[in-house]
Every structure is written in C-alpha cells, then in structure tokens.
C-alpha cells in the first residue's frame, strides 16, 4: 500500500518529469540530457513505489530504513550538485567580467 509520503514523492517526481520534457521541447535540454533526467526520475519513481528493492542495499551500508538511505542519498546528491553549480557560476562570472571589461577598454581605445 502506498502511504502519504510516497504520494507526495510521486507527485514531485512526475512534476519533475513534466518540467524536464517541457525544457527539452523548448530546446533548453539536449537529447542526452533529457534521456539522463528521464532515466533518473524513472528510477526514483520505481524506488518510491517499491522501496523494498533497496532494503538489502540499505543493510549493506548498515542503514536500518530505506527512507534513511534515500535521505542520505538525497543529501549527497544535493551537496554535490550545489558544488558543481557553484564552480560553474564562478567560471561564468569570471568569463562575463572579462568580456565586459575587455569590451569597455576596446571601446575606449577607439
């Protein structure tokens, strides 16, 4: 039987599938990216509906409940994504700054 928290998780996962497809249709995600996201969300949906699939996996890491394992996994995923995003934003900021400053100085020379 599916409990309340699983319903919320399923709604979230399906809405993320919708947004992934929407961004793909808008041309903001490439073919490989949409496939990756769909595979990830499909796996998440399967795990949400059948959490017992991860039971033996959780025991391997000495985690009692699958819910705890998913929380830990979620934290690891979020932290790694935030650090990757941080580095990319810093690079982007640097490139933008160089571009704007170079344009300004080039215009001043004319």
């Amino acid at each position, binding site marked *: 039987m599916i409990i309340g928290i699983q319903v919320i998780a399923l709604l979230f996962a399906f809405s993320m599938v919708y947004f992934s497809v929407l961004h793909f249709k808008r041309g903001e995600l490439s073919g490989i990216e949409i496939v990756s996201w769909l595979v990830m969300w499909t796996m998440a949906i399967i795990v949400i509906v059948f959490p017992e699939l991860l039971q033996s996996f959780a025991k391997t890491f000495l985690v009692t409940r699958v819910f705890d394992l998913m929380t830990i996994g979620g934290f690891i995923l979020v932290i790694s994504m935030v650090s990757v995003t941080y580095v990319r934003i810093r690079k982007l900021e640097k490139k*933008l*700054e160089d571009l*704007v*400053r170079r*344009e*300004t*100085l080039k*215009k*001043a020379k004319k």
Partner: protein
Amino acid sequence: MKIFVVIPLFNEEKHIVKVLKDVSFYKLPVVVVDDGSIDDSKKMILDCRLKNTTLLEHKINLGKGAAMKTGADYAFSHGADAIIFMDSDGQHQASDLPKFIDALESGKYDIVSGSRNYSYGVPLVRFLGNKFASVVMSAMFHIYISDVLCGFKGLTKNAYEKLRWDSSGYGVETEIVARAGKTKLNICEVPVGTVYHNKVKGVTILDAFGILGDVVRWKFTI
C-alpha cells in the same frame, strides 16, 4: 609623476557632478568607470563637459572591484605612474587628494591608504566593523591597516602589477590589503574625512560575512 584619479560609479546621479567638479580643481586626469548605472549618472557627466575626464562604461553592473580594475588598466595603459581611487558617492573629499599626491610623489610608498577617523562621522557599527577587519587582517596577513575597508587609496604602477585583484565586488579593498601583506610593499596611511550620504548603499552585514569567507580563502590562495 603622472597621477590619475579613478572613480568607479554606480547610480550616483546626485553626487557625481560635485565629486568631479571638486576633483577637477587639482587638474589631474580623471577616469570614471560607469559600472552599468541605470540612472542619469552618464548624462550628468557628459553634460558637465569637464576637461581631463574620461568616461568608460561597463554594459552591465559587475561590481566595484571590476570597475576599479578597468579604470586602473585604462590609466596605466595611458601613461599613469600612479592612481588614486575615490568613491563616487561624495563620501571622500577631494581636499584630501594632496595628501595622497605628496605620499606617492615622495617615492617612499607603493600604497597610500586613506584612514577614516571615527570623530569625522563614521557610524559606530562601521567603525567597529573596520576595527575587527584590521585585527583579522593583522592576524592573518601580518599587516595592520587602521581602515581596511576605506576605498580612498593610492597605488603606484609597480604596486598595481603586484596587487591585481580578483574580487569584483566590495571585497576588493580587503583583497588589496591581503595581497599587500603578502607582497611586502611599502604602505602608509593618511587621515581622510568622510561624509555618509547614503546609509542603504555600501557593504552590508551579509557582504561582510562573504568577505570574511574570502579572507580565509585568500590566506591559502594568495
């Protein structure tokens, strides 16, 4: 010695004309870097038609540090031997410029840093923040500057080449001091007056925490 005044500018239509007119009294070349202002600052500067004043424009707002770097690059590529940074909000007084000019022309100093006196109207919170910054910088970079966050600074070409900062925002003054501590350049302080026109603008407590994080990073990366 050819000294340029570099003024980073962002939305200061109320004060920029007075600042430029006051500075023009000293007949120094002035470089104003408009850092993506969305008010009438640019129009006001162009309407003034001041001699010796060059206006550079960033198409978007990059931050004070980036504007200072653009101004410095322009000045040194146009024959400057030294530059003096001034804020565009009228906080710094042009009448203090001779102190910087004298110190730079003496040839003894690579960096001349303005020091705002509490009795000249610095709000208590900012004064205490400045003192905390001085103590932290002294402990981490072995350089004591009584007013780390003061934007009124003079640099020689040699100093700029050694100090060229990465900060694009308000962390720039602190980074300059951190780099100065590492490079062992000759530095002196001159007392400057200050007038706070705008209590909303400037370094906020959140900026200060960000800068504190940067200080720890610079300790290992500079």
